[in-house]
């Protein structure tokens, strides 16, 4: 493909992305060094916003909680997602129904799913799961005001919401594992566990990496679900980084746009660090192809 053709194909899309993603991003970086309000020109104040954020224990708690959530959810999603995908793959006629039912959790708008999920646990609204768990364990857990019960609920919700995507992706990947490979392994005497560990998972490395990447990205920016699931997020240490930005930079009464922007820049750095292994792999692959 000639250069000019390439430019004309990619131009419109690139224009939109530069105008609506790159320029706003540059503005965020500028704001992070300013004391500024919406609609006004800011004044340069150097690194104050950054020192303020890094010195704020509330920000530290938000970072800790977000990383904890990301680590736990990603691990659960990969393991459970793989097992469920194997199970679904072995199903016969039931398969479309099971898969369709599971996909509902993924396609529901995040906030809607979180509202429904919170009702299952909320004794004020006649929740059923809190009641069942109370009967089974004999103790009343404060799902919305105690740190760990609330965390368990948030983790459960996040896994519930993101699991179908990983099942779908891994299932799609399983279709691409050549039958000959499995048969050869079977002839060589591999049992089921060995087959998965040494044959199927290595051939699907690309997909599993992709699922891992998308899950990390999605959990790092947890925001919507906390509104119904953790109304007192800050007080019990279950606030996500994005929630911290929202509270400081947008919510009525506290429009510290500079501080919010600084946190945005910091979280971009954090995300890049988390994604570094994947980025390195992609670059390596690109080099190999070039």
């Amino acid at each position, binding site marked *: 493909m000639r250069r000019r053709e390439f430019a004309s194909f990619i131009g419109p899309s690139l224009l939109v992305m530069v105008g609506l993603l790159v320029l706003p991003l540059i503005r*965020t970086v500028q704001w992070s060094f300013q004391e500024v309000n919406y609609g006004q020109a800011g004044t340069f104040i150097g690194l104050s916003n950054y020192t303020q954020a890094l010195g704020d224990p509330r920000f530290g708690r938000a970072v800790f909680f977000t990383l904890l959530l990301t680590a736990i959810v990603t691990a659960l999603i990969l393991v459970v997602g793989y097992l469920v995908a194997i199970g679904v793959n072995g199903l016969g006629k039931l398969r479309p129904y099971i898969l369709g039912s599971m996909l509902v959790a993924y396609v529901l708008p995040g906030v809607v799913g979180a509202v429904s999920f919170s009702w299952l646990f909320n004794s004020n609204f006649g929740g059923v799961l809190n009641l069942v768990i109370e009967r089974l364990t004999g103790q009343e857990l404060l799902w919305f005001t105690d740190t760990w019960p609330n965390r368990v609920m948030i983790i459960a919700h996040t896994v519930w919401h993101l699991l179908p995507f990983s099942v779908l992706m891994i299932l799609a990947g399983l*279709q691409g594992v050549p039958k000959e490979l499995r048969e050869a392994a079977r002839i060589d005497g591999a049992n089921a566990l060995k087959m998965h560990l040494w044959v199927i998972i290595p051939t699907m490395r690309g997909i599993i990496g992709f699922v891992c990447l998308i899950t990390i990205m999605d959990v790092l920016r947890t925001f919507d679900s906390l509104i119904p699931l953790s109304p007192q997020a800050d007080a019990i240490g279950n606030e996500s980084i994005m929630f911290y930005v929202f509270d400081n930079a947008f919510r009525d009464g506290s429009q510290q746009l500079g501080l919010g922007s600084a946190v945005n820049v910091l979280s971009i750095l954090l995300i890049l660090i988390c994604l570094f292994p994947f980025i390195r792999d992609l670059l390596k692959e690109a080099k190999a*192809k070039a």
Partner: protein
Amino acid sequence: MMPSTATAPATRVVVPAPKRRRRRANPTAAILLILLAVLMLAPFIWTALSVTKPTDVAFANPPVLSGYTPTLEAFKNLWETTYFAEYLVNTAVVAVISTVVALVLGIPAAYALSRFPGYVSAILLLLALVFRSLPRFAVVLPMYDISRALGIYDTNFALAAALVAINQPFSIWLLRNFFAEIPKELDEAAMIDGCTRWGTLRRIMIPLMRPGILTAGVFVFLFAFQEYLTALVLTDTASKTVPVFITTQLGQTLPMLQQAGAAAMLLTLPVIAISFIAQKYLVAGLSDGSVKG
């Protein structure tokens, strides 16, 4: 795997498809999966129950499970006392417009990326990936500022434009992987026969890519339909979307809470229909292209 064997290059040896071994599903696994599926649907079922109860028992603790007459009062209330219909139209309009525009912009870009060899493609894809993972607020707060300055704050246009941009990297990435599966010889043949690049894309590639385009379209539509954060920041009253409406109802009176539940149901049902219809294409589409390493 090719979308259609009829278009396979001539060098490909046609092997008769091996007879599928009919494997009986493991009953324990089947039962576990059915249980899991029910569990995954539980929040949805519970909400459906809550919104069809009379308001006085809807949120009673312990929950009332029988002895009431189911009612659709909450839906009627929702329709009559709120601007739900308007919010639903806003949500649908924004989702449809942003999906169409995202595909119109994304298809040529993805095609070009799949055909232009070497580093440029790789680096652009990497950028797409990084942009996909950005914290939303880092672009949405400046968009808020700019949209106020331009006077387009709280319009469907502003929200749709924002969503096109935000979803563009993902659309391009997904579509590019589908295009990469189509052999380049096909382009060359078409161009020898006198097609321009655009002609090749329009006449050859797009028809071949139908499952891929459908997959990308479904994803982008769902992302737009679900979007909460962007809509929260970029809309106020005129172009409010259903997810934002639902959260404003929380923490209000019980009837309003029930309306929120009813709104959630109405927003969900079409999406469920889409997911049931599309899941077959999604699995086929995804295994055709996007996710081969």
